[in-house]
């Protein structure tokens, strides 16, 4: 992954704060944010903060990881349905690989997601951890 400061900076609201988009016409909410609505096609959306708690809909334990992600392996990846119904795909942390189950409650936490070598920038983003 080639990283630059500007590239990381411009995604900060959605990647640090879990900001999604809401369509100004059909009112559907989705993540990651997009300037047009993928469902009704309307050309205007607004940014909104998404609920930070949700449940696991599907998950995988990834053993073969891309270059630069060895230190995070195995990566547990979850398809999470937030409390408002919006879905997010992100790593799940702070749990054993065999302790994940369908419907498990999780909440968003801010974690390191990538380090661009020893001297490059560190990228942070949302991951999910078990919640009550």
């Amino acid at each position, binding site marked *: *992954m080639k990283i630059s400061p500007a590239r990381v900076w411009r*995604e900060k609201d959605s*990647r640090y704060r879990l900001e999604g988009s809401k369509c100004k016409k059909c009112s559907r909410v*989705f*993540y*990651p944010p*997009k300037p047009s609505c*993928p*469902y009704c096609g309307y050309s205007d959306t607004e940014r909104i903060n998404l609920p930070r708690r949700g449940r696991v*809909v*599907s*998950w*995988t*334990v*990834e*053993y*073969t*990881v*891309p*270059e*630069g*992600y*060895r230190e*995070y*392996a195995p*990566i547990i*990846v979850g*398809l999470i349905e937030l409390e408002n119904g919006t*879905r*997010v*795909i*992100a*790593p799940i942390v702070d749990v054993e690989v065999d302790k994940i189950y*369908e419907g498990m409650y999780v909440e968003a936490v801010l974690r390191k*997601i*990538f380090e661009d070598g020893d001297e490059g920038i560190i*990228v942070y*983003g949302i*991951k999910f951890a078990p919640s009550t």
Partner: protein
Amino acid sequence: MYIVGIGMVKIDRYYDKGYMQLIHDAAIRAFDDVNSYEPEVVVVGNMLSSSLYNQDSLAALALDAIGFRGLGGLKVEAACGSGGHAVIVGYSLIASGLYDQVMVIGVEKMSDYPTSTVTSALAQAADAEYEYIYGISFAALNALVMRLYMLKYEAKREDLALWPVRMHEYGSKNPYAQLRNRITIEDVVNSPIISDPIRLMDSAPIGDGAAVIILASEDTARKLSDTPIEIAGLGFGSDGLDLSSREELLNPISIRRAAEKAFRMSKLSPSNIDVAEIHDAFTITALVSIEGLGFAGPGESWKLIKDGRFAAGDKPSINLSGGLKARGHPVGATGVYQVAEIAMQLRGDFPGVRISNAEKGLAMNTGGVATLTSVIIMKR
């Protein structure tokens, strides 16, 4: 519009051959397959030349590989679906009236690099900012879909092992296939985990390959070939770049749209298709593809496969080449292999498992997790 010439190389790990030699080898066979040829333009289906080989301008490389410096050309990229999309672009160049003869080349080199490097390059099919950056691989995204499918339709792991077993059976009879060995259900469920529940034997192998088809307008086709195969319909479609905002993960819009367009154009329906090559980069991809094309209802494909449906002789017979699983999946080239294989099934000269008197065939190729899909329908 007709397919008049076909050339393929066996998919393999060619440490002694680069893009240029692979294209040359496939093209020579395509030239041998026609009475005469005078291509006017090349369209190259390829995914990884830029990310793995620092090579853009791939059409110029292809033209030098076949001794046609000076002609026009372009590369078409739709991740693992590049090949099928290249055929659509080739078709369009003739349909527009610009050209009479077009060479469509699918080519990929994957075997020179370690798995983690190839995994990184393939991850570029997904959303770079919201999937890849978290270290989420292409297999992991497909694994999310596979588990969702198993939970929703109550399919067991063993049930989903039947497909790769069948693919290896067919691959063992296809001289162009990368994997020629037979496997068992036990082999599949005990193979190493790539991204749970996806195991190694659910996944297409890493390989190199090149396939070429020569397309020609109707008038020209009769001169070039005694056995031209008509392209009767084609279509393409998309779904979300990211999986999280998709409405139906198990029923991608891209497959439905591409199929609807291709069936409407050819005035055919799924029940008319005798033989098909579909995209099965992972076992789950086969199920979603069969259902998306209308060969099975939602959640039904795995049961039908268990009942022996879609095997050689059934209508449709699916992936007699061995599919991506066993024929191999040199990603950007795969779609061209599929079209070549269906055309050969219809001509009656496919050298592997072949059904007799096939009249109508379909090739479906997709990039990403059914993110960019093409469907091409052919007629004898």
